[in-house]
């Protein structure tokens, strides 16, 4: 009954979940069902008309997924969330609510390679035009603003190099331009950085990474900060104008500060269809319960490994914001004081061949295209995640030919260092 604020770890375990009203089950049940019965015709009509709380069909909402949604919204400090099938799906659904064909959005040049591809190619075919800006040069975002700009998109900790983005500075640009700031918080997780506290209006995640944390389930999520006023100037008609598919309902008027999450659900997920499996939602929820424990261990291990690599004669440079010598260290201290994440890159003096050699010799690190697993992972971005970029774009996004990316797991750090030592040594 009190208004005392529970801590992050309490929310990670409890937010959104309660004993099942029907059975008393304490763990969140997997509601593995496509559909839900209506009480009567009037109840059905109320649900379809967005007039009543309740479940219709798992492509629109599911009770297991709803627990996941509320939990991540609580951890991020948002008003509501929508879980979808993947991080990529989250990005499509978000931008569908914001952009009309011919509109633009500004994106940081340093992004996950898959996002760069999605923005450059797939979204271009929808008439959504990406304009790139440099997160190390805030003025480049200001210069990129035009009357057609509808959003700004950045990563809090940028893939692959683990650089830290100055979210507050870019949120000032977004506010001035009258557009929402979207932050992909995948590599930080809300345990390290809560972008809404720094001015983000929308947060997206690949749940596949640290939130789920065990490398077993794909998922994505959209968190509505409840901070953006969609009603001004008819710029965001999906939110401000009467929706013909819902008998003329205006989402902002009806749903207030969680209207964006509702738009993503009833206009995005419903019509585009990338629903998250309730089973995956259950797996990810289970992962989130230990997020604070895992994330701290990930960061502590990453710092130890980065320090080891920085002192190794075969290593040319280490790009990890947790190291005091790193270019992004001051930003890391401001935005991520508990740790600078666990995904970073380093480059080898021996260049491309040395990178390939290292990857092949590692025994504990798994060579694969994912991050944020309990297991330590390694990849050579230039030949994989970022391979579809041209050479100049590879270097600009921090994935030059000599660069190796690590995602540090929660094993014993001594074992990780020993594995790197043997692989670098010979």
């Amino acid at each position, binding site marked *: *009954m*009190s*208004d*005392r*604020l*529970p801590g992050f770890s*309490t*929310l990670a375990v*409890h*937010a*959104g979940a*309660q*004993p*099942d*009203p*029907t059975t*008393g089950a304490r763990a969140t049940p997997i509601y593995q069902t496509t559909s839900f019965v209506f*009480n009567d015709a009037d*109840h059905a009509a*109320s649900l379809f*008309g967005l*007039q*009543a*709380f*309740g479940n219709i069909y798992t492509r629109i*909402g599911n*009770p297991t*997924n*709803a*627990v996941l*949604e*509320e939990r991540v*919204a*609580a951890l991020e*400090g*948002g*008003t*509501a*969330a*929508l*879980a979808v099938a993947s991080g990529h799906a989250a990005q499509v659904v978000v931008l569908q609510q914001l952009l009309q064909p011919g509109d633009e959005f500004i994106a940081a040049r340093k992004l996950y390679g898959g996002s760069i591809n999605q923005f450059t190619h797939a979204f271009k075919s929808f008439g959504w035009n990406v304009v790139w800006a440099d997160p190390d040069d805030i003025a480049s975002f200001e210069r990129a603003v035009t009357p057609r700009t509808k959003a700004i998109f950045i990563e809090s900790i940028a893939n692959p190099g683990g650089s830290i983005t100055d979210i507050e500075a870019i949120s000032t640009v977004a506010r001035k331009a009258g557009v929402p700031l979207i932050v992909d918080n995948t590599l930080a997780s809300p345990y390290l950085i809560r972008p*809404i*506290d720094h001015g983000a209006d929308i947060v997206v995640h690949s749940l596949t990474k640290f939130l789920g944390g065990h490398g077993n389930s794909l998922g994505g999520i959209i968190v509505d*900060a*409840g*901070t953006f*006023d969609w009603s001004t100037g008819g710029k965001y008609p999906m939110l401000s104008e009467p929706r013909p598919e*819902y*008998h*003329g*309902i205006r989402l902002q*008027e*009806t*749903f*207030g*500060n*969680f209207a964006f*999450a*509702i738009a993503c*659900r009833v206009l995005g997920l419903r019509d585009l269809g990338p629903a998250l499996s309730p089973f995956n939602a259950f797996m990810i929820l289970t992962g989130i319960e230990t997020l604070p424990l895992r994330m701290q261990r990930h960061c502590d291990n990453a710092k130890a490994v980065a320090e080891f690599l920085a002192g190794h004669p075969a290593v040319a440079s280490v790009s990890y914001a947790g190291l005091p010598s790193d270019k992004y260290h001051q930003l890391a201290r401001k935005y991520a004081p508990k740790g600078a994440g666990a995904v970073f890159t380093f480059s080898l003096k021996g260049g491309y061949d040395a990178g390939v050699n290292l990857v092949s010799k590692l025994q504990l690190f798994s060579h694969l295209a994912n991050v944020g697993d309990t297991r330590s992972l390694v990849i050579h971005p230039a030949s994989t995640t970022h391979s579809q970029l041209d050479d100049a774009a590879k270097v600009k996004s921090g994935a030059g030919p000599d660069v190796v990316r690590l995602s540090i797991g929660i094993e014993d750090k001594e074992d990780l260092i020993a594995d790197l030592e043997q692989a670098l040594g010979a």
Partner: protein
Amino acid sequence: MNHDAYPDNYIRGILNGVKSIAMVGASPINVRPSYFAFKYLAQRGYDMIPVNPGHVGKELLGKPFVASLSDIGRPVDMIDIFRNSSHLMPVVEEALTLDPLPKVIWMQLGARDDAAAAKAESVGIKVVMNRCPKIEYGRLSSEISWMGVNSRTLSSKRAPAPTQGMRLSLNRMSVGGGDTAASDRAAKNKSEQS
């Protein structure tokens, strides 16, 4: 009362305490928010009275419309106003002529008039602005969680499965109270600019 951020206990006290609610601006059109807020609150057991001079002689879900607050002819606990911010003051002034006075004046999501609020509060009436009682009821009972909304409450208790016409417990543990800090800040900035 700080109208930029309401403590959960304030809203909870109101929704647990009031029994009758007169809704000014209630609409018979079933896609209007006032219609489905009216319907929801009636289903949760509140004694609902639709007030709208344009529909006198008709009924809303079996309740006859009245033209004005003074036509209700019996005491009401709460006035819920579904009008734009610019039309709130006359309704509040009319509410202040009622005898007995209502205990609560609630202004809908998007509606805010600080001068009208101050007037009502000066005679001991509790005021809520820019909130929806349906959303708040759904939030405090956690029913709204079904839509992925952050209820900002927690509970380890087994809740009864909700059925139509049933009151739900609003007594879950609050997470900070009211809206999120970020959305409260944004709303405050907006109200200061206007």
